[in-house]
C-alpha cells in the first residue's frame, strides 16, 4: 500500500460449506440451487415442535479440517444458540458453537511479503448451520425467502489478526481452499458461496503495537473483490484518520459494481445474540482414537506436496507452490506424472499453457472440464516429434475449450509433423524458387532474409514441420 506511514492489520472469518450429502440437522440434500423451497422439511424450516438431529459427517469433516489446519481438537463439544431475528433464519436462532468450538489454535503457512514463510494463526473453527436466501422482488417491492440453503453445514474458520497485506490474505485463502479441497471437506466454490470470507480490518501508524478500531467487511464474492475491498477500506480508514476523524466499529457491505463499501444500517440499536447452550443437542465427545485415525487418514497436504515436488521432482519453488495451491492442478499434474510424463515438462506446460488458458478464460482450475490425461497425451506427441510445439499449443486450446481428444484432433485436422524429408525439401525448393530476392539478400550476408524464408517455408508446410529440420534443409539448398 502506498501509505507507508500506516500499517493495515487484518483478520479473516471464513465460512466454508461442508460437502456432506445432507444438511447439518436434517436429512435434506445440500445440493446447490434447485427451485425455491424444494430442499426443505419441517426441521430446516423451523416448524413448531421439530428437533435437530446432528449429522455425523459434519463432526468428521470439521475434525478433518481442524487437523489439516494444525488445530487442537476439542474433545468435549457443545452447541450453542445464537439468537437473532431475520427472515433467512427460520428458527430465529442459529445453532453454532460459542463456548466450546471444535478446533482451536491452528495455523496455515503462507509465503510472506518478503518472500519468506509466515504462519497465519487460526484462533478457532466452529460448526454451525447456514441461513436461507433472500431475493428481492421488484414487482411487489418485497423480499422473497428461500430456505434451500438453510441448514447446510458450515465451518467458520476464524484467523488471528495476522495479515498485513491484501496479498497475504489472498495467499492464505488460496492455501485454505487447496487444503479443504484436498481433504474433500468442501468444494470451496466462491461463486456458489461455499467459501465466503469476511475481513476484519484496522489500520495503525507503522510501528505501533496497539490495534486500531476495526470494521468488518462482507459480501465479497471473488478473490479479486476481496483484494479491491481491502484496498478500498484501508484507504478509507487512513483517509478518516488523516483528517483527524475516528473509525467507527461497524459492519460494511462491499458493492463490487460500485467498487465501494457501505456501512450496514444497524437493524436495531442492540445486537445482543443471547447465546446459551443448545438444549436440544447433547455433547459430542471426540476420542483420542478418532483424532489419531483421522490424522492418519489425511491425504498428503499442499505443504508436504510442495516440499516433495521441489525436493524429489526438482521443480522450481514457484512452480511447486503454484501447482500445489490447487487441488485440480495437483490432480492434473499427478495423474500425468503417474502415466510417465516427465515432471519438469509437465510443470512447464501447467505453468505455461494451462495457466495461460485459465487466465484468458477467467476460469478457476477446478472448472477445467477436459480429461486430464489429454495433457499427457499431448506432451507425448511433442516428445515423439509427432507434432511441433507450436501445433501442440493450438491443439491444447481445443482440448481446454472443447475437451477434444488431442490424438483424434491432430488426426482429424491433419496436423502431424511432416516427417517425409522429400516432401519438406520439395516445399522449400518451391519457396526458394519463388523468392529470388530474399535468396539474393541471404547470400549477400543478410541473416534476416533467412528468417523470412524459414517463415515462408513453415507457412507452406502449414506449421507441421520441425523448424530445425526446415532450417537445416534451407541452408543446405542455399
Amino acid at each position, binding site marked *: 500500500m502506498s501509505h507507508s506511514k500506516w500499517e493495515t492489520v487484518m483478520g479473516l472469518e471464513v465460512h466454508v460449506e461442508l460437502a456432506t450429502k445432507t444438511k447439518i440437522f436434517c436429512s435434506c440434500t445440500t445440493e446447490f440451487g434447485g427451485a425455491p423451497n424444494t430442499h426443505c422439511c419441517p426441521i430446516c424450516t423451523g416448524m*413448531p*415442535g421439530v428437533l435437530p*438431529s446432528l449429522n455425523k459427517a459434519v463432526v468428521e469433516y470439521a475434525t478433518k479440517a481442524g487437523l489439516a489446519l494444525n488445530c487442537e481438537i476439542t474433545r468435549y463439544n457443545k452447541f450453542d444458540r445464537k439468537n437473532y431475528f431475520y427472515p433467512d433464519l427460520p*428458527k*430465529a436462532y442459529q445453532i453454532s458453537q460459542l463456548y466450546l468450538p471444535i478446533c482451536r489454535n491452528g495455523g496455515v503457512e503462507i509465503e510472506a511479503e518478503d518472500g519468506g514463510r509466515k504462519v497465519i494463526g487460526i484462533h478457532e473453527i466452529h460448526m454451525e448451520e447456514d441461513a436461507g436466501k433472500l431475493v428481492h422482488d421488484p414487482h411487489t417491492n418485497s423480499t422473497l425467502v428461500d430456505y434451500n440453503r438453510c441448514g447446510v453445514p458450515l465451518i467458520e474458520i476464524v484467523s488471528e489478526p495476522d495479515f498485513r497485506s491484501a496479498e497475504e490474505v489472498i495467499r492464505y485463502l488460496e492455501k485454505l481452499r487447496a487444503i479443504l479441497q484436498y481433504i474433500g471437506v468442501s468444494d470451496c466454490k466462491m461463486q456458489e458461496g461455499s467459501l465466503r470470507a469476511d475481513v476484519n480490518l484496522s489500520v495503525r501508524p507503522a510501528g505501533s503495537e496497539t490495534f486500531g478500531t476495526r470494521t468488518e467487511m462482507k459480501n465479497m464474492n471473488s478473490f479479486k473483490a476481496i483484494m479491491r475491498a481491502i484496498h478500498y477500506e484501508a484507504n478509507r480508514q487512513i483517509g478518516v484518520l488523516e483528517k483527524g476523524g475516528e473509525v467507527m466499529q461497524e459492519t460494511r457491505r462491499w458493492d463490487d459494481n460500485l467498487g465501494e463499501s457501505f456501512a450496514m444500517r444497524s*437493524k436495531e440499536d442492540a445486537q445482543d445474540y*443471547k447465546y446459551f447452550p443448545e438444549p*436440544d443437542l447433547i455433547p459430542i465427545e471426540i476420542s483420542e482414537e478418532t483424532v489419531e485415525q483421522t490424522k492418519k487418514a489425511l491425504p498428503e497436504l499442499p505443504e508436504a506436496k510442495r516440499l516433495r515436488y521441489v525436493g524429489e521432482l526438482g521443480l522450481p519453488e514457484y512452480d511447486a507452490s503454484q501447482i500445489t495451491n490447487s487441488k485440480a492442478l495437483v490432480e492434473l499434474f499427478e495423474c500425468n506424472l503417474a502415466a510417465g510424463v516427465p515432471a519438469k515438462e509437465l510443470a512447464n506446460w501447467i505453468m505455461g499453457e494451462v495457466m495461460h488458458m485459465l487466465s484468458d478464460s477467467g476460469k478457476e482450475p477446478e472448472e477445467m472440464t477436459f480429461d486430464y490425461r489429454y495433457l499427457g497425451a499431448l506432451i507425448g506427441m511433442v516428445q515423439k516429434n509427432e507434432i511441433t510445439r507450436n501445433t501442440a499449443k493450438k491443439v491444447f486450446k481445443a482440448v481446454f475449450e472443447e475437451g477434444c481428444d488431442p490424438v483424434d484432433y491432430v488426426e482429424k485436422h491433419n496436423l502431424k509433423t511432416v516427417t517425409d524429408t522429400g516432401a519438406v525439401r520439395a516445399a522449400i525448393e518451391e519457396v526458394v524458387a519463388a523468392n529470388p530476392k530474399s535468396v539474393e539478400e541471404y547470400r549477400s550476408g543478410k541473416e534476416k532474409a533467412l528468417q523470412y524464408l524459414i517463415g515462408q517455408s513453415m507457412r507452406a508446410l502449414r506449421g507441421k514441420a520441425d523448424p530445425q529440420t526446415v532450417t537445416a534443409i534451407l541452408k543446405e539448398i542455399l
Partner: protein
Amino acid sequence: MELKDMTALELGAAIRKGEISAVEAAEFSLGQIERYDKQFSCFVTVQEDVLQRAEEVQKGIAAGAFTSPLAGVPMGIKDNMCQKGIQTSCGSRMLAGFKPTYSATAVEEIMKAGAVPLGKLNMDEFAMGSTSETSFFGVTRNPWNAECVPGGSSGGSAAAVAAGECFYSLGSDTGGSIRQPASFCGVTGIKPTYGAVSRFGLVAYASSLDQIGPLARNAADCAAVLGEIMKQDRRDNTSVATKGIDLQKVLHTDVKGMRIGIPADFFGEGLDKEVAACIEAAAKQLESMGATVEKFDMPIVKYAIPAYYIIASAEASSNLSRYDGIKYGYRAEHPADLLDLYTKSRSEGFGMEVKRRIMLGCFVLSSGYYDAYYRKALQAKALIKAAFDRAFERYDLILGPVAPTTALKIGENLSDPLKMYLGDIYTVMINLAGLPAASVPCGFDGKGMPVGMHLIGHYFDEEKILGAAHAYQQVTDWHKRKPTQLDRI
C-alpha cells in the same frame, strides 16, 4: 360395568373380548363431550373423523394389527403435540389455524397402539401457566367445581379425564404441567424421566425440561399408556433407550420393604394444612403396607423456583422467537416494514404471560447478565440433581405434596404472576433434575377438592413409581371418586 366407570385398560379388555366395539366406545365419548364440554371447555378441537378412526381400529384389532391393551380406547391429546392435518394451537392466537404436516412421535406411537383420538385438549398458552386460564380458546374449568381452575398447563388433559370425556390423555410437563392439574382434578398423571418419551413434535416451551406423559384414571392405565410411548427416537437427540414399561411388573409391585423419603423442606411455609394432612395420611397408609417412611432434609428446595424460572424463560424466549408471522401462524396486517411485521405479529399473537416470560428470558440471557442468572441457574440445577442423587442412595421413592394448595378459584392468581409461580415449588425441581414423578389422588380438602401426592423416583424408575401408586390404589379409592355434579349435567 357401565362404560363411564371403566378405566382405559378395562375398556381395552372389553373391546378385545368383543363385549363392546371401538365405535361404540367412541360414540360414548363423543356423547360425553357433547354433554360436558360446554361446561368445562376441555377440548379446543374435536376431530371430525373419530368414528372412521374407531372403525378402522376395530378392523385392525380383528385383523391382529393392533395388539395393545389400549387399542380402540378413546383418548385426548394436549394441543401442543403436533398431529398431522389437525390444528395444533398451543392455546395461542399465534397458532390458531396452524395445521402441522407431521405428527409428534408420541402421537405416532399412540396411534400405532390403536388409539382413537377424540381431539386436542386445552392448555395454558404455550404451556406457560398453572391454571389453564391463559388459552386464546377460553378457560377450562375444574369438573369438581366449575368455579375452580383445573390446574395447568395440561388443564384440558386432566379435566377431560376427570369429567369422563376421554379415558386417558397425553399431557406435557415442563414444571409440573401434568402433575399439578392431575392433583387438582383427582386423576393420576406421570411425568417420565427426561428423555424417556420423544419430544419430537411437541411444541417446545423449555426444551431441557419438557416431557410428554399420560394422565388417566389410575396408575395401571398410566403405565399402559407410558409403555406405548416410551421409546427411543432418533429424531430427538435427547431421547434415551430404555427397557420400556413392563405392565405386569407394575401390577404386581409390593411396597413392602420400600424405603420412602419425605423432604422435610416440602412441609414449610405456604403448604395448606389440609393438603399436608392428606400427604401425612398417605405416608401412613404406605407405611401400613410395609414401606418405611422417614423425613430428611433437602434445603436446596427454596432455590428451585428461581432456577426454574430463569432456565424456562430463557429457553422459551428463544423457542418462541420462530413465531414471526412469516412461515406459519398469526401475521399482523399491513406491516410498515420487517421490524413492524415482527413486533406487531408477536404483540397481537401472544398473550400477556407469554410476553412476560419472553421478556424475562431475554433479560437473563442478555449480555452482562448471563453469568449471574442463566449460568448460575445451571449450577443450581447441578446441585439439585446432586441432592436427589444423594437422596436416592437411601430411598426408593420420595413422597410429598404436588402443589401447596388444592385448585384455586378462577381468576385468583391470574393477576399475581409471582404468586402463581410459587405454586410450582414442589414440581419444578423434578424437571430441573430430569426425574420421573407422578401425582396420585390421596384425599380431598374440606371443600371437596382433590389432593394429589407426589411420588418421585430416580432416573427411569417409572415402574417403581407406578407400581407403588398401583399398590396404593388397590387399598384406597380416592382415584375412583367422581365429581357428583357430573350426574346433574
